[in-house]
Every structure is written in structure tokens, then in C-alpha cells.
């Protein structure tokens, strides 16, 4: 995936996928809770479009966007969210814990900081096996105060592990403004460890892609971890039950003016020489794609609870 339209399509798919999830939620077809990625699409698409075969990604509970950007089947993912047997994890994982190794998705991690741990471990494997791959951890701004953050940054740094830490700073940790519980600037933390650190406009997919490409190259070259702080905003609730009262007045509207899809569309037309019509066509294609996906998902079979489940890999003992 390399051209601008592809990046746009990737983002559009995520946005419409999340819209569909939200609608299905309201209809009672998706159960439990979901954490939508809407507004942050440029981060996942910008980073994941720069990966090489064999690279691994650790995504969060807010992982739909990362998964789709990695090429995980949107059908299989939607089926998973609906708990169907045809889901990428057979319905076992649900929204927060999807794993799809074939597409480089090590997992979506429900524990804040878990992605950093997982990616650090993957990078350790790459490093010791002399495998020319990079591991990517996505996580939020609030994660910068969690134990795994500091321990993993240091561990990756001292072993010069090929890992790119992608901090998606959307200003909030659930409903609490991160700045109110965070001392200093997030980017100063990796810097204090001597880790190469860059801050990037997370709503500009081209900027993210460029920053990610450099970061991945640097990490792949063996010079150690790279930290990207990706400034973005979540234009939907944290999860299903979000009270929403925490946003500063006008903030949401301001950020909606910088919606990554809007920005990308504008750039494609104004700078990359595409027609509006071409972009519209993508929208229409994604629309149809999502319709089919939702339809199929709703018709997909449920897993059979009467099937026996082994306790351990490799047999009962």
C-alpha cells in the first residue's frame, strides 16, 4: 500500500467500520463494550502502511483501526466483534483482545501498557534471531504513567531493540485529561533515556507515514528503539458508556475541522492531483464493502459451546 488513495481508503474503511460497529451496538448486535478509533485513523494507517513483511504490531483495546490497517480481514474482524464462529479468533476474543498473527497483529491488549511489553518481547526475538523485523507498540498518552512504559523503554533502549513505540496522544485517558495527572511532557521521558523521539501531527496521514517510515528504518537498522508521539484526537466516546462531559468547550468541533479524512481528501485533491470524484469513488466502494460485511456478519454462524476445549496447548497435560 503506497499511494495516497490507498491511505485514504484505509482510513475511510476504518471510519466506516467504526460507524458500523457503533450502529450494530445500538441495535444490540455487538455486546459488551467497544473502544472506537474514529478520529485517529491517520495514525494506524500512516504507521502500518510503512511496515515490512514479518513486522509485528501490538494494538490496544482501541484496536480496530490498527487491525484493519494491518490488512486483517474486515469481515473476519466484524464477525469477531459479533462473536461469530467465523471471527478471526472464533469469537473467543471480541473487540478488545483480537489476535491475527497472519497479518502481524500480535494482539490487542486490554491492559494499559500491555502493548509495550508485547512489542518489546517481539523485538527481543527479532534481535536475538537476527531477523530484520521491527515491532510496533501502539498506546495512548495515559499509558505514559503506567509501569510498563518506563520499564519497557529502558529495556528496549539498553538492548537496542528494533521497536517503534507509537504514543497516540488523544489528550484523554478515558475521561480524565492526561495533562492533569502527568508530570512534564511525554516526549521528554523517552528523550531522558536517549531514545530517538519525534512528535508528529497525527491527523495528517502523510506526515505520520513519513515519520513512521523514518522511525521504522532507524529501528530496523539496529540503532535501537524509536518513540513517536502522534498527536491526534478521538472524536467519539472512549467506550460505549462515555459521559462525554470532560471535553473542553469547542474542542471537539476544532478537532473535527482537522478530521484526518478531511485533511487527507484535501491533500489528495490540492497537492497530489487527484479528482474529488476519485476520492468519492473510494467512499462509495467502502460503503458497499461495509454493507456486505455487516450483512455477512449478521448471517455468520455462532460458535458451538458444546465443542470440547483443551486446557493446554499440545493436549490435556
Amino acid at each position, binding site marked *: 500500500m503506497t499511494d495516497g488513495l490507498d491511505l485514504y481508503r484505509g482510513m475511510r474503511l476504518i471510519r466506516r467500520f467504526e460507524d458500523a460497529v457503533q450502529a450494530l451496538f445500538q441495535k444490540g448486535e455487538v455486546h459488551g*463494550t467497544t473502544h472506537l478509533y474514529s478520529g485517529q485513523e491517520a495514525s494506524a494507517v500512516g504507521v502500518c502502511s510503512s511496515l515490512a513483511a514479518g513486522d509485528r504490531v501490538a494494538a490496544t483495546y482501541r484496536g480496530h483501526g490498527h487491525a484493519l490497517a494491518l490488512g486483517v480481514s474486515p469481515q473476519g474482524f466484524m464477525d469477531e466483534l459479533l*462473536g461469530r*464462529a467465523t471471527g478471526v479468533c472464533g469469537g473467543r*476474543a471480541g473487540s*478488545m*483482545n483480537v489476535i491475527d498473527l497472519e497479518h502481524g497483529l500480535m494482539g490487542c491488549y486490554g491492559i494499559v501498557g500491555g502493548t509495550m511489553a508485547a512489542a518489546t518481547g517481539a523485538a527481543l526475538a527479532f534481535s536475538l534471531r537476527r531477523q530484520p523485523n521491527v515491532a510496533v507498540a501502539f498506546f495512548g498518552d495515559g499509558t505514559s504513567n503506567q509501569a510498563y512504559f518506563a520499564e519497557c523503554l529502558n529495556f528496549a533502549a539498553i538492548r537496542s531493540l528494533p521497536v517503534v513505540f507509537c504514543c497516540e496522544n488523544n489528550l484523554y485517558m478515558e475521561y480524565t485529561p492526561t495533562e492533569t495527572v502527568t508530570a512534564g511532557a511525554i516526549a521528554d521521558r523517552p528523550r531522558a533515556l536517549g531514545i530517538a523521539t519525534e512528535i508528529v501531527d497525527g491527523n495528517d496521514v502523510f506526515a505520520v507515514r513519513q515519520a513512521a517510515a523514518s522511525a521504522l528504518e532507524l529501528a530496523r537498522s539496529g540503532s535501537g528503539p524509536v518513540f513517536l508521539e502522534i498527536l491526534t484526537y478521538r472524536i467519539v466516546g472512549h467506550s460505549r*458508556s462515555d459521559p462525554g462531559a470532560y471535553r473542553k468547550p469547542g474542542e471537539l468541533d476544532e478537532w473535527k475541522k482537522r478530521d484526518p479524512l478531511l485533511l487527507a481528501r484535501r491533500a489528495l485533491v490540492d497537492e497530489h492531483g487527484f479528482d474529488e470524484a476519485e476520492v468519492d469513488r473510494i467512499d462509495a466502494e467502502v460503503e458497499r464493502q461495509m454493507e456486505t460485511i455487516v450483512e455477512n456478519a449478521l448471517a455468520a454462524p455462532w460458535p458451538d*459451546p458444546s465443542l470440547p*476445549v483443551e486446557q493446554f496447548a499440545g493436549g490435556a497435560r
Partner: protein
Amino acid sequence: MSEIEFRRAIFEALDEELARDPAVVHFGEDIAAAGGVFAVTKGLAERHGERVFDTPISELALIGAAYGSAINGLRPVLEIMFGDFLPLVMDGVINQAAKFWYVSNGQGTCPLVIRSAVGGGVRFGAIHSQMPAPWFQNVPGLKIVAPALPGDAKGLLLSAIRDDNPVLFLEHKHLYGVKGPAGTGEAIPLGVAAVVRAGSDLTIATAMKSVHEALAAADELAGDGIDCEVIDLRTLRPFDVPAVVQSVERTGRLLVVEEAPRTGGWAGELVAEVAERAIGSLDDIWRLATPDHPIPFSPPLEDAFFVNAQAIAASVRSRLGR
């Protein structure tokens, strides 16, 4: 008698203790300004000011803050949002809080409470549905409280906050919306079980959401002429073993129902205690718990995974040969 919602019962206990005792403080992630992800603490910060506050996502620092302040004059109540995150505070609980009183040779106490939302059946998947009680059941010095009924939730939380030991207070997500008799609104002693249904053929001992399942099963079984006594354990550490033994000495049979993987859960502990003490009076003893694998997300898988009233009734019938 007036009714109270489980969620509200928790709120009232916190609110009253904060008002009564200036040493009580409550903190956790998103509990103050937003009122908690399960809307339990809405309005608490407005009422009690800086003694109710939001924290960073720093579970290790939080348990440290709770422990360190508890041994220095506060009575902190810490919320760990989901029970699944409790492993992050285990070091603080095991190696600091629960040891302080004993190791100090009684120089001081460590009165802290950890509130946490636990349990499954709400489609939250493998990492937001677990039952942490068994992870903590071998920690001397720690108490574990696990209410089933709204009135109890309040009375037990009052006692937990007043207790001079670290207490893990488990709130089953499924129960937050449940209403029940408010009771007296007074403190209920920890470590004392309640017979919530009297019966003569079989004792079912359980806790939290499973109490409701056991009561429903008992209703169903009454139709088959099986008369179940149901014991709500209420406290999982220390167990009220005498209450269970007393009951079993009358009924001759004990079924322990637990919402946690079968192997290594607290049901085993209770079965062992009773077997050791009352093997002579026992015609039968067994447990029902979940399978030994992580909690599946998919609704039909999750529904089959947990022990519900039907499963309890079926098991009782089969074990009693009916």
C-alpha cells in the same frame, strides 16, 4: 422495607464514611470528575472535595499510596477499575499491606480497602471479566469481601472501611443495577455468612452473583421436592466455616458454587475445610465452577461458560440421583 440499588449502596457507604471520618479518602482512575466507569461514585467528589480524587494510570503507585497513607493515619479506599488489573497491585498487597501489622509486631495497622469491579457475563471478554478472589486467597492478613445483596454491600463496605486490616472489596459488575432491601444501613460484620434460604436436603454455599443463581436454582429444585439451604458467604477471607459446617451437619450435602475457573478457586478451600471437619456427617460434597480456560467473548460461549441456575439445578438433580 425500602429498596436500594447495589450501586447506590456502595455510594452511600463511601459517602457516609467520608462524612464521618476525615481520615477516609477515596481515589482511583476516573472516579472523581467522571464519577467512575460504572457510575458508582458520581457526585462523591463534589461532596467531599480533595479527599476524592482522580489518579494517573499507575496501579503500582496507587497501591503504594494506599499502603503508605494507611500506615500514616489515613483510611484510604482505592478503586482498581477492573478486577483484572489487580495483579498490578499484588506486590503492594502481598509484600507491603498484608504484612505490615504482623511484621511490625503490632506497632501499627494498615487499614485500606481496594474496591474493584469483577466477574463476567457482560461480554467484556477474557481480560475484563475475571474473578480475582482466588489470586488473593492465600495472602495472610488480607480480608476479601464479596457481597451479593445491595443491603449487604453497604453494610459490608462500612465494615471494610472501618476494619484495621487491608480489605479487598469485590463488586460484581452484574449486580450494580440490582435492587434489594436496604436493611438497616448499619455496618455488617466481616467474616459472617448469611443463610439466605433455609433448607434441609442440601447446602449450597456461594457468593456474589452466584447467590442469585443459587436462589433461582433452589426455587426450581423445590418444585422437584429438593429443599436447598443457600448460604451467602459474603466474606471469602476469612470464610465463615462454622456456619457452613453447621448447615452441612443438618443437610449432609454441600455444593459450593464459584464463579472462577474450577482448579485452584476458593471453592476448593471451602470444600477442603468442610471435608476435614465434617467428613463423618457428609453424604456428598462437590463444587461447580467455570471451565479451566479463559473467559470467551462470544455470547453463546460465555453463557455456557458460567454456572447459572439451570446448571446448578441440573447438577444437584444428577448428584442426588433424581
